[in-house]
């Protein structure tokens, strides 16, 4: 062992990294930085960031029924929901106010898991920085609405599964209704009671 051999070995390592940064690709030891605003990595499908409310076809047709389950489950309590009422004062199955405070939301995705009506999902949008935390970061119902097509676009696997399940449930319901109608029409001939 001579003084300095270890130093030379170490210096060669850094020299190699230095040269590789000019002549090698990102997977051969070169620079693997993706310079963000100009270039960006492909989004992973299961990436999650801030929830949005889903609607079918038109924005009036949102799936949320204002059941308040997500607001109760949300750990930092950042969802605020007020049910809508019609003119006679009967409760409607939709929210009049649905606010999420994005300064408080921690992107945990519990609201999505808890919702029994497939109405709230985690988004891919992450560039929502703003200068005003009082007004810009408090998202109201209409800011949160996004279409089912959008959901299908960003998370095709989940959306496909959920759509298929909902369609199946719909069909079953329809079949059951048809059965019920049929049963009603054949009511006059009840089966003779067994003895």
């Amino acid at each position, binding site marked *: 062992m001579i*003084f300095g051999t270890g*130093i030379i070995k170490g210096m060669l390592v850094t020299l190699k*990294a*230095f040269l590789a*940064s000019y002549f090698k690709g990102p997977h051969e030891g070169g620079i693997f930085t993706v310079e963000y605003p100009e270039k960006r990595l492909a989004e992973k499908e299961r990436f999650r960031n801030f929830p949005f409310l889903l609607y079918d076809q038109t924005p009036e047709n949102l799936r949320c029924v204002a059941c308040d389950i997500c607001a109760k489950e949300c750990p930092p309590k950042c969802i605020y929901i007020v049910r809508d009422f019609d003119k006679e004062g009967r409760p409607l199955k939709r929210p009049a106010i649905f606010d999420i405070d994005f300064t408080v939301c921690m992107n945990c995705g519990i609201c999505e898991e808890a919702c029994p009506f497939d109405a709230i999902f985690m988004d891919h949008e992450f560039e929502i920085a703003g200068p005003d935390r009082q007004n810009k970061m408090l998202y109201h119902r209409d800011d949160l609405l996004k279409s089912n097509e959008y959901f299908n676009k960003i998370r095709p696997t989940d959306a496909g599964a959920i759509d298929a399940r909902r369609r199946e449930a719909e069909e079953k319901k329809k079949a059951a209704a048809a059965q019920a109608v049929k049963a009603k029409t054949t009511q006059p001939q009840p089966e003779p009671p067994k003895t």
Partner: protein
Amino acid sequence: MAGFLPDWVLVIKSVLISIAAIAFLGPVTMMYLTLLERKVVGRMQNRIGPNRVGKWGLLQPLADGVKMLTKEDIVPTPADPIAHFLAPILIVVPALLVFAVIPFGRGMTAVDLNVGLLFFIAISSTTTLAIFMASWGSRNKFSLLGGMRSVAQMVSYEVPMVLSVVPVILITGSLSTNDIVLAQGGWGGLKWFIFTPWGLLAFIIFYLCGVAECNRSPFDLPEAESEIVAGFHTEYSGMKFALFYMAEFMNSFTISALAATLFLGGWQGPVLPSWLWFFMKTYVLIFIMIWFRGTLPRFRVDQLMNLAWKFLLPLTLINIFVAGFWYFAPNTIVRVLMSAGVLSLSFWGLQKLNQGYAPEKRVYQFGD
């Protein structure tokens, strides 16, 4: 134009031109050295380095300058206002002064002092005073620790540094930087001192001590950020901090320039213009400094002292004798072999003597 002006105006004019050139060259060098350093270290760590301000980040130093200038200047209440204020100014002065004796090219020395080398060493060692002033004036324990370390380190490394220059003076018989460069002019401008056994050793020692002198990694104990915040410039902000930074980078430039002058033939070299040779050599040495910083972890204080006093100092002393032998011995291959042999033998011996006792296996007294 020379015919129209009286002599004293000509003198003043040339003085002013030299001053303006150095006052411009120093800060600009420093600014772009910061960029170079960040780029090179970045690439050594698989990063890109600054590349947003201007093309390839070329305007980054200007942006940094603006940032530094507009920052708040904080003076701690218990600090000694005069020492605290003067230190950053005083530290830049020697860093700029030593530019005067550096031969940037053929006939491009601002002041061709016949004691240029002595001037350089004397002036550059006053940096210690400014650093200690900064640390004492800040009234901060981290500053003071950094200052103490700095003094200990500078005093220790000054000795082998000066002694490693002695062989060069011995051979050339002159203290003028210009004469030293001229003495290396043989072989078509390639008879550099580094190609002799004593020159190689002296160069390595001089360069290591130079790195230690300007507090650069791996000898950056005075400003070790993982131990004592920022060392002597903990309590400085804004432009005062920038002045410390500037002095450090100008020092690393001048040390590299002097190492190139003394051992790499200065501006001597075939074909290319002299100033280009000079800057190429200097920047290679600066690149090695940055390379050190990208590679090596910091020394411990005792290791630092051991290296200076127990290894470099004896080696320089032996080197002086070898250079004396070289001077008097006839110019044959025997001379080269003998001096190389003596030096490698002493290197090997000193290394053996410096090796501490390391047991094969650690023995625990109470652990088992």
